């Protein structure tokens, strides 16, 4: 098992190195000089020159990369060109807020999605199954910004239950904090349920027809034990992989959702730094997203191994 984890971790590192090169190559591939780009077309040459020196743009490209990547490893992410603040704390703050949002959404997607999938599988072919299918498909078929607007109109404007946008820290009180989280979370959850519930449903249906489930019934086990203990364990294996992929999709989802709800997280930071040509912040943020994505997949692989003894022992099945 240790060897397995070490191997997977090595892959994560390789992925991150590759992504960091890609992200960094943005600087090299941009048609104009980065300093020009940041300062705009009418900047005086001496200012451009000063910024070039500050950013180290006169050095060879590999040296720039090494310096940038080295800074990353030592925790020095550079400085935001726009806000003139170190990127590190800026990013940490945004990540923290986004994690609250994605974390809550992710847990809800997993719990509700798997739950709906099980119900649909047990009732498959029935009206409840069809209802769940239609509902979750509706969620995935229409883009997130649409649901975001619907949520704002219904929950904030009509019912007035929740604030339409913004963020309040936990220090402002739990209720206030939670109220700001609910609407964006709802939007994200609704848009992602279908993957999980559909996959759980189909693998659950398959597993429920497998000989070992019939065998479990033949042992006279209560139906609850048959479903939750015998069937679900095996049916969840593909779902785990999709959950990890969905976590990645959530990272994309927050870009839209945070922008609409004016939620100051990682997604909004990315949009903000693109709009304002804050290249160092953008690079750092994207690398962080890639890291989260890779780690989520690593976690999924480990969970998969946890539930699938065939992988856990790293043995070839005869």
């Amino acid at each position, binding site marked *: 098992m240790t060897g397995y984890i070490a191997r997977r971790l090595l892959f994560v590192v390789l992925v991150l190195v590759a992504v960091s090169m890609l992200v960094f190559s943005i600087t090299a591939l941009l048609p104009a000089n980065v300093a020009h780009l940041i300062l705009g077309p009418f900047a005086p040459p001496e200012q451009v020159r000063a910024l070039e020196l500050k950013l180290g743009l006169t050095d060879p490209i590999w040296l720039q990369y090494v310096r940038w990547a080295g800074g990353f490893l030592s925790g020095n992410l550079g400085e935001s060109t726009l806000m003139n603040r170190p990127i590190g704390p800026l990013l940490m703050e945004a990540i923290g807020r986004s994690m609250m949002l994605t974390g809550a959404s992710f847990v809800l997607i997993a719990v509700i999605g798997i739950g709906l999938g099980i119900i649909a599988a047990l009732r498959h072919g029935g009206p409840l199954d069809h209802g769940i299918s239609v509902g979750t498909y509706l969620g995935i078929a229409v883009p997130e910004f649409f649901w975001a607007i619907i949520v704002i109109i219904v929950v904030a404007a009509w019912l007035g239950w929740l604030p339409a946008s913004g963020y309040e820290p936990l220090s402002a009180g739990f209720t206030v904090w939670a109220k700001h989280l609910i609407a964006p979370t709802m939007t994200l959850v609704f848009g992602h349920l279908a993957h999980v519930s559909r996959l759980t449903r189909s693998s659950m249906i398959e597993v429920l027809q497998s000989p070992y489930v019939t*065998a479990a019934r033949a*042992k*006279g*086990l209560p139906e609850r034990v048959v479903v939750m203990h015998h069937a679900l364990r095996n049916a969840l294996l593909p779902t785990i992989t999709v959950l990890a992929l969905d976590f990645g999709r959530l990272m994309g989802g927050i870009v839209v959702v945070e922008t609409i709800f004016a939620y100051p997280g990682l997604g909004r930071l990315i949009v903000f730094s693109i709009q304002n040509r804050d290249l160092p912040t953008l690079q750092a943020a994207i690398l962080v997203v890639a890291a989260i994505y890779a780690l989520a997949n690593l976690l999924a692989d480990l969970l998969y191994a946890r539930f699938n003894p*065939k992988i856990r022992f790293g043995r070839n099945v*005869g």
Partner: protein
Amino acid sequence: MLLIDDLTVRYRTPGGEIEALSSISLQVEKGSTVALVGESGSGKSTVALAAMGLLPQEASIPSGRILFDGQDIMMMNVEERRRLRGSRIGLIFQDPFSVLNPSLRIGDQVGEGLVHHRGFSTERAFARAIELLDEVGIVRPESVAKAYPHELSGGMRQRALIAGALASEPDLLILDEPTTALDVTIEAQILDLLEGLRRQRGMTMVFISHNLGVVRRISDEVAVLYAGQIIEQGRTEDVLQRPIHPYAKGLLAAIPRIGQKQGRLAAIPGRLPDLRNPPTGCRFARRCPFATPDSDKPQILRKLGDRQVRCTNAEALREAPWPRPGESEQFAEVVRSPHAGPVVAVEHLTKTFGRHAGFAFKWRRLATSTEIKPVNDISIEVAAGEVLGLVGESGSGKTTLGLSILRLVEPDSGTIRIAGEMVSGKAQRALESMRRSAQIVFQNPDSSLNPRKTIGELLARPIERFRLAPSGEIPARVRQLLDLVRLPAHYADRYAHQMSGGEKQRVGIARALATEPRFIVCDEPVSALDVSVQAAIVNLLADLRDRLGVAYLFISHDISVVAHIADRVAVMHHGKMVEIGRADEVMNAPKHPYTMKLLSAVPRIDGPAPRSVGERHGQVA
């Protein structure tokens, strides 16, 4: 103990309602073993599911009662039935490879019945599971209990399943093809185990199987099912040695017997009647050589001595033998190839698995470093028009050898010569002429025939590929091929799913013949087929050999089939060839201990009655 009375079961299917069981009545006395035998579609497994109250939702039971110990199972509510299952009635399924939950430990699966029926704690159930595993003859039961199913062999899994069924000491054990997925030597061990349990515990058993040899070893009484009806029932030895119903006669005649090499096997022509609309008269009449006008009247199960037979003509048929196939289709002498010498010559062929180059695999090797040699220094020759039988248990390397000879699996070393051409050492794309002269027939026609192509297209493809006929003549050539495997010409427009298993395998053979090969690897060509169909396919292969002079490497785990068709037999064990010789010599006077073990394990339908299983136990183990 178990009384099934006038049970009818129907399944709703998209194509209409199928009557899987029609008025089945069966009585199982306490302490006895009753076998249900029949081919696929006979309804034998439905009996098991019905007795357990486990029929799927599509099933309906318009009539009948199932009494267990005097109580009607069908009158019980779901909860009562559940309590009966696993505590008083145990069920053991066919395939130990898919019946165990892959993600739960063996010990938990063996003991869990105790947790739910007897209120054991999980720890106590696990401890009891270890005892049970010990009881069914598993060595080191503690570590097996902690293992997961994929870590065990098929025989161990089946033992674990039996242990699980025994856990709550059921009064009745229903076994649905419990040894079908196992090798003969393992099968013999499991049968010994069951026989022992039966004697020690006085267990009542219902044993469902298609294998008459197995049934003969284990059961007191046998009921033969055909198309949802019991057609003959009586004491096992009586029914198997002196069958009365024509179907039972046919079934027994179709089984090849070791040491009695006949010209051709007896086959049962035709196929099962359509159960959506079963004939009102005898359901077997259309396939029956003894059919009379009376056969169209409804048949009832009549008592005949201590036997029951569903045939109005039973008395007259008592001694009538199933017609032997005449040697009518005798063809001219085998067309031996003009340039003498073997069609296939293989020398020192070796194939090793677990040595793949590549990133991921190298890492795995560091962790486990297992290396197996499914083909280990094998040398064989096959002459023109000769059938070389290849027997061995699963994992012995038979299939890998067959595939390596055709370079469908790349051998590591050794030389292969087919039809005078050096095949080993050539690049795959240089194998053009070999691909024509050597072909293969696979075990499972369902997965080897493309479901989206018509049979005509499937057969035309190799003809086009090798430009064996101008495109205008291809349809005629396809008809010829169909005729060769005795399928009507209009089958060219059918798709694989519109055909029965035997017909599909005929197409598989026709496809192999399309390139006019001189050598065909037949990889378990009849293993997926019923006995009566198997006989017809074996006969067909024998005819084709006589007519076309093709040579076969005939791979099978079924020794009696190989003994019947092969001129010479090779026995493989762990990748090595332990014995090779003339078929009758190997069968009657095996030299290698492994061959002897293999032969003694085969459950036979002839020879002395095998009631002395207990005594044999000492010898085998």
